[in-house]
């Protein structure tokens, strides 16, 4: 998917605009392949929670949880394919990790698909994706 909106700069003091550039589905696929290697990537176990209709792409609450006992999850990885840079975050858990569930806030440049991958200590990889629509601010300051 490619980003569909490119805005022309109009004069408004204080306006800050994005530099035109986005990642791609292919770029995310390459990153995921590097992460997973030859292992199988399956749907399930990991759950990515994002609003389907995003109020403002600047700050989007995200929850990633894994159906697993404490200590079973090695790491979590999140990718946003239509952001300027596709990587969102990587989180590696240590031995004191509790319930495998994290919450953070992310930026989404435009409507797109976001993917989360959980890597388990048993070597398996699990993924979940959310396709969402991003609403833009009507008035920009």
């Amino acid at each position: 998917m490619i980003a569909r909106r490119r805005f022309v700069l109009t004069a408004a003091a204080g306006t800050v605009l994005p530099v035109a550039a986005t990642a791609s589905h292919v770029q995310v696929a390459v990153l995921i392949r590097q992460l997973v290697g030859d292992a199988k990537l399956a749907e399930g176990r990991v759950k990515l929670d994002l609003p389907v209709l995003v109020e403002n792409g600047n700050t989007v609450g995200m929850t990633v949880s894994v159906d697993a006992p404490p200590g079973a999850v090695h790491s979590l990885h999140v990718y946003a394919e239509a952001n300027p840079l596709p990587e969102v975050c990587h989180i590696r858990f240590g031995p004191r990790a509790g319930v495998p569930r994290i919450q953070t806030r992310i930026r989404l440049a435009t409507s797109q698909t976001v993917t989360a991958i959980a890597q388990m200590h048993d070597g398996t990889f699990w993924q979940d994706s959310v396709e969402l629509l991003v609403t833009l601010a009507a008035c920009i300051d």
Partner: protein
Amino acid sequence: MVRVLLNVPRQVRRNEPFDVKLLISHPMESGQRRDAVGLAIPRDIINLLVVTYGNEEVLRMDLFPAIAANPFLAFSMTAVASGTLSITFTDDHGVTQSETATVEVV
């Protein structure tokens, strides 16, 4: 100096998961924006966040410009003995800052 809000229960039960919430005041300037006269605003983000408890690493997070301004992180952890929870983060200039909280295991 960056402001940090670290929310941890003061008392927890041994080996029972508890929630930690963290807010850091930081613009997380993505490096993808231009200012009003068209100049690129340089990237300035917190790129690494490490949570330790005693001598053990609880969580290590690599952050990218897609993490929103004033980063928020909530996670769960366990403790077997009273100790100090320490959050250490590093920005693009290599500046490191820490915030700690004590946890009593009852």
